[in-house]
């Protein structure tokens, strides 16, 4: 078995074992062991990748190709570059943290962990696929368990939220499918056979007219899951209803499929289309950045705040991708990682606070620093990371995006860039507002004085997420070099 297919196989084995578990204890331990194996595989992959990269300078390494449907030339084709390696690492960390956070999932634990792991299969598969069709299949695998996870284990208007989320993402998938098929049917433009293979399509000169036609479809199809304005509204409701681990996985990982897909498919395969259409998507993404931040100021539910903050942060990812240069792209990928860790951490903390106080309304909370100091302190740290404080990953990402965007000297892009830089101020406002109201101040409710202190599995989950945030923030060079190196061929393809 090759090193990448294991990422699909191990979760399948975990699921098989999970089928035979009888109670919560067995289920969570199985899930934990499976996720720990995944994480060690991801870490191992990083090292193997560096080793392989030293001797192998092809675009993708660890490739494997099996035909699975010959008539349409569909392959199971996998391979990774620095970008996918980084995202695989992100996924495995968030999944493990999610398992720890769901340590007390008393409701149908077996089914819960199975759905969670099915979701992760979709994500892993998506990040390693080099075949558009296979990629699309994995994309759907990732989205569908979401419906069950929110519909069954959610809270509040969960059926509605689950339905809304699934329908909007499915609608996007439909558009995306047209885009992918459009690419497929133009992949013989230079006389070769029709193919879904990304690397082969990239060598083909797809007619400019086709590029212009299919770029917006592909872009929007992916960007909906990346919370592109105005298609972001599934996210606040979905997150608010989802159980903690699902919010973590969804915001932390699933939403990254959007940016990754835009980059890997829309930008890479349809560069002329990207140049043609970028202005309109730049406008939408900058609106998302500023608008999301402003909306977050006025929210009172912690999860809504975080959901709108995600709209703002991920708007920055799309904005950076549209800048079409290496620095901004590097920023976009790092921002994806950074947002993944940060938002997962936020949702984990929100879950812990909710579990203890049974409210997510910041107006009802107050003085938490006094009663649950560990959780509150980490919340402050996560907040500072989120507002782009140096020393945390967000700063590195944002600075790459801003410096990269500034390399573009058209007045339009300049204005867009300056507008998106304003988020460093607006983000500070909504983060510090929450910190001020919820964590500082006098303890509002005497019942809070007896809140349960943080438990060991919660601590583990938090630390897992915090370490990479600080790691990237303090020593960004290694990850940034890994990504930059992989971006080189893409940028050359574009020029």
């Amino acid at each position, binding site marked *: 078995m090759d090193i990448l297919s294991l990422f699909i196989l191990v979760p399948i084995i975990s699921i098989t074992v999970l089928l035979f578990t009888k109670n919560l204890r067995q289920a969570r331990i199985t899930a934990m062991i499976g996720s720990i194996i995944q994480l060690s595989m991801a870490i191992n992959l990083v090292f193997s990748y560096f080793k392989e990269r030293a001797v192998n300078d092809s675009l993708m390494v660890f490739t494997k190709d099996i035909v699975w449907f010959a008539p349409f030339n569909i392959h199971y084709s996998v391979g990774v570059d620095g970008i996918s390696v980084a995202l695989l690492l992100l996924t495995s960390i968030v999944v493990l943290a999610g398992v720890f956070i769901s340590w007390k999932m008393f409701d149908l634990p077996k089914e819960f962990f199975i759905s969670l792991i099915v979701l992760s299969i979709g994500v892993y598969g998506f990040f390693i696929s080099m075949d558009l069709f296979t990629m699309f299949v994995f994309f759907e695998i990732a989205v569908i368990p979401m419906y069950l996870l929110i519909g069954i284990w959610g809270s509040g208007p969960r059926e509605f939220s689950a339905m809304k989320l699934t329908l909007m993402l499915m609608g996007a998938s439909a558009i995306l499918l047209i885009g992918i098929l459009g690419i497929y049917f133009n992949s013989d433009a230079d006389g070769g056979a029709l193919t879904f293979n990304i690397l082969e399509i990239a060598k083909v000169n797809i007619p400019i007219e086709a590029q212009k036609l299919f770029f917006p479809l592909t872009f929007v199809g992916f960007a909906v899951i990346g919370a592109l304005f105005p298609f972001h*509204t599934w996210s606040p*409701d979905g997150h608010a209803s989802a159980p903690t681990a699902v919010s973590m996985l969804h915001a932390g990982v699933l939403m990254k499929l959007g940016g990754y897909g835009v980059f890997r498919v829309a930008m890479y395969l349809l560069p002329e289309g990207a140049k043609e259409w970028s202005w309109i998507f730049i406008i939408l993404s900058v609106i998302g950045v500023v608008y999301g931040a402003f909306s977050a*100021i006025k929210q009172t539910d912690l999860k809504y705040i975080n959901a709108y903050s995600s709209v703002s942060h991920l708007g920055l990812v799309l904005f950076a991708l549209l800048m079409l240069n290496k620095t901004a792209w590097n920023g976009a990928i790092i921002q994806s990682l950074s947002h993944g860790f940060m938002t997962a951490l936020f949702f984990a903390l929100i879950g812990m606070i909710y579990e203890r106080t049974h409210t997510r309304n910041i107006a009802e909370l107050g003085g938490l*620093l006094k009663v649950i100091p560990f959780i509150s302190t980490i919340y402050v740290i996560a907040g500072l990371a989120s507002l782009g404080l140096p020393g945390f990953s967000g700063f590195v990402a944002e600075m*790459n995006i801003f410096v990269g965007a500034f390399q573009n000297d058209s007045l339009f892009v300049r204005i867009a860039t*300056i507008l998106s830089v304003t988020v460093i101020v607006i983000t*500070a406002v909504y983060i*510090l507002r929450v910190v001020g109201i919820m964590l*500082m101040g006098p303890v509002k409710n005497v019942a809070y004085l007896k809140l349960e202190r943080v438990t060991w599995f919660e601590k583990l989950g938090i630390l897992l997420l915090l370490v990479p945030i600080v790691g990237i923030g303090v020593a960004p060079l290694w990850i*940034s070099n890994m990504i930059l190196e992989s971006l080189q061929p893409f940028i050359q393809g574009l020029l």
Partner: protein
Amino acid sequence: MNISYIILIPAIPLVVFLLLGIFNQRIKPSVSGYVGVFGLLASALMSIYAAYQYFFVSGNVDGVFQTFSQKTVWMNFTDSLHIDMGILIDPISVMMLIVVSVVSLMVHIYSRGYMKGDDGYTKFFAFLSLFTFSMFGLVLATNLFQIYIFWELVGVSSYLLIGYYYTKTSAIAAAKKAFVVTRFADFGFLIGILIVGYYTGTFDFETLNNPEGSAILNWASSSFMGLSALTWALILIFMGGAGKSAMFPLHIWLPDAMEGPTPVSALIHAATMVVAGIFLVARLFPMYYFVDNGFVLNIVTYVGAFSALFAAIIAITQTDIKRVLAFSTMSQLGYMMLALGVSGYDGHEGVGFMASMFHLFTHAMFKALLFLGAGSVIHAVHSNYLKDMGGLRKYMPITNTTFLIAALAISGVPPFAGFWSKDEILVAAFEQDKLIYFVGVFVAGLTAFYMFRIYFGIFWGKDNTYEHTPKESPLSMTFPLLVLAFLSMTVGFIPFSEFISPNKVGFEAHLNYPLAAVATVVGLIGIALAWVFYKKENSLADKWAIGFGMFYKWTSNKFYFDEIYMFVAKKIFFKRVSEPIAKFDRKYVDGTMVGIGNTTVGTSKKIKGLQSGRVQDYAFAFIAGAVVIGLVFIYFWT
């Protein structure tokens, strides 16, 4: 010169911070205080050693102070643009090392007494160390981005320390305000950095500041709205500096920042962090001077002079002694700014630059002393307000004497430190712009007046009766007062111009006797007036206040700037932007999406009646369809 050991100066406080921060719960307060103090003592000794080495042993080669640097790449943007981390040793950074380490050490020692018994004692020392680390990093920065990074870190340390008493609503609001206002200024700073990076291809100070370098020579290569791109960049960078240094109109956070513990006010909001803006302009001084022929320096001058005057006027009417000191700080920072603004570059023309740094240095000593003295008083009477004080000289002799020394120093009375540095500023202003000079002299008078107003108000004035008899603070608090008092008396005699100048070549600066005499006399008049008004309890001051009428009211309300900002933030941004957006999102954006869903459901409801399940309906539809198709067929056939 070997500078590699200098990295330890910031590294030690960082280690202390991590140690105290991570093991916050497990370290005994008595231990954490010592860890903090001794860590900083090591840093301070190294700073002094570095200064000795630099200024007297190996820094000066053929009359020119050399620049040493050591750096490594921290983050790559493009082939030419990258963020380096490293240390840059030149006269101003070495001077700043002394300022930061000495004041911080004193504040650490002082805090052991002042914060005794506080719940968050260890946390407090952790934050102090974090701040000191960040401040060292800031002054040693080798490039714009590094300074920006540490700039943000000092900002967040300031946030944490202002909000130290986190259960107090006013402290929370003040901390947030300080962070958001300076963040807004940093927005300008960051855009400025981006412009510099794009047009000059580097962030590095040594490259940027080289008068023969391409950055300065090609400043006019591109322009935007009538000014060169680099001019815009420098204006925006100055905006960042003005935010940190509480220049008008970005000053509103500083008075509120007094919500923090008093040692914090002394360290961060008087001596070190707030001078970061001055330091930033000084750090880029060659750029400010050469780009657009010093156009931006005019802005610096006027903003500085106006802030100095504005703050001094407000300081007269404040009743909270810490706020008086805060406005006094703002006013003195204005002095430093204006001195930079009027400075030239070569030889004696650089006196403004030198004077600014000189004043920064002396001010750090006597203002820290004033704050620590005020802290000692507050510690004794448990109030910040003048009305709760009076006659304290009998109870607190050391505090009284040291506070008097500091007050004399800031009032510019010879031979105390402030006299020498203020004189140089006035000389620089006089040679450049008479209007600015007059403003400077007037402010000197106001300074002396408001400073002695609070001095007399605290230590003389009415003989207040106290519930608990106030007593002199413990040695841990008075020792730093004595050290700083000694420094406030002596540092004025340092021949600063031999060490610090824009072009790094020392020059001779002499006392300008007529100007010095004028400034001294004005200062003494201010003191004399304060004597008349406040030495003994009388109603003179109130009468005058009434005489000024509206002007007094406006002044004591700080010209309503807080209210204006609050209005803009709450009524405009929150109410007119944020809230409508949040509603719009739910109602229209989301509404559209939900609407599409509902339309689908609605339509399907309507058409689902077609599937009625009755055979006769289907038969009818079948026959009707067949007839229609038949007719169409026949129509086209014929």
